[in-house]
């Protein structure tokens, strides 16, 4: 169950609309994701295993990132407008949680409100999709999931120099990033083969790969790679 390249990725979808839940579930399943849907932010947090007091345990989480999660979730996609806890509230809670903050979050909304979009992106959302969400939007999720898997990889290999999964980087503290990027490229190639029709989306994937190397983002995502270098 631990091999990232073989396991299906698991997406948690949050939306109070039954129709939209059905739709997003179908979109995600068609794209080969394992899907769990919930109808509120509160239920999402329950599913993620987040309890109010988890936020005060940063130490345990940095060594065992998934300690507090019952099931591994690779991405969260949530509606913005929900009664009670909005998608934005949920996003904040996730980013404030030491155990959950590494999970990429995508926001969906039926309304195109620039200030809303910016607020979400600034709070750490990877992307903002306008509803109705389409297959072409869902195709953009993979890089965000892979980026996080990559970050986990790098953190593990720099903390545990003796027993890392990449054999060659004992004494090269700078190299793990490159090596993981090679793996990342391999996965990108696999994606290429699988998604030939989505060729134009590969262009945006390679932009994002470049973004990783330069620490900058060509699109709206804020730079998140500083986290990698500070761990080193």
């Amino acid at each position, binding site marked *: 169950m631990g091999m990232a390249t073989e396991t299906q990725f698991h997406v948690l979808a949050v939306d109070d609309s*039954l*129709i939209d839940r059905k739709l997003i579930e179908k979109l995600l399943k068609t794209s080969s994701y394992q899907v769990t849907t919930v109808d509120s932010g509160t239920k999402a947090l329950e599913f993620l295993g987040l309890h109010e007091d988890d936020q005060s345990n940063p130490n345990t989480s940095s060594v065992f990132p998934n300690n507090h999660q019952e099931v591994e979730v690779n991405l969260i996609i949530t509606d913005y407008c929900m009664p009670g806890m909005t998608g934005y509230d949920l996003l904040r809670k996730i980013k404030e949680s030491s155990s959950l903050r590494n999970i990429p979050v995508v926001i969906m909304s*039926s309304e195109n409100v620039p200030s809303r979009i910016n607020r979400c992106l600034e709070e750490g959302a990877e992307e903002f999709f306008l509803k109705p969400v389409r297959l072409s939007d869902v195709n953009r999720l993979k890089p965000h999931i892979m980026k996080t898997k990559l970050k986990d990889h790098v953190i593990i290999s720099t903390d545990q120099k003796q027993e890392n999964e990449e054999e060659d980087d004992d004494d090269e503290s700078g190299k793990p990033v490159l090596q993981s990027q090679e793996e990342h490229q391999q996965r990108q190639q696999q994606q290429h083969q699988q998604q030939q029709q989505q060729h134009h989306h590969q262009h945006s994937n390679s932009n994002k790969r470049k973004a990783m190397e330069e620490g900058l983002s060509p699109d709206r995502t804020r730079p998140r790679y500083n986290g990698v270098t500070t761990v080193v």
Partner: protein
Amino acid sequence: MDGVVQLQKQLVDYTASLFHEGFLDEQFNQLQQLQDESNPDFVVEVVSLFFEDSERLLNELGKTLEQKTVDFKKVDAHVHQLKGSSSSIGAQRVQKLCIAFRNCCEELNTEGCLKCLQQVKHEYSLVKNKLETLFKLEQQTIAAGGSIPTL
């Protein structure tokens, strides 16, 4: 078999007319593309949810607007939901009317809202009718041994 070909043609023409007349938009196409062997009734299922949801909302809207003091926030919330679900299945005309409806809510205009509600109800029953006809045609085509042509 002539019969199947004719049915298929009827189906294609009917579907095209729904798009042409603005009842349905591209999103409906997206739904059809998502349907596959693992989920052959996907479109019917989603649209059925839409019917149930819409009827509930239209009912609620009627009640809310009949109150002595109209709770416009509540009206707006219902219309927002209806706008969302109609957008999700591609029911374009209903969606557009919901936008106008929300404007009346913002203006706290009860008369305007009641008028909008009538219009939305009317448009909704039209599109419901159209979609039910479409599904019947699909069933007939399949029953005759044909497949649903993808547009």
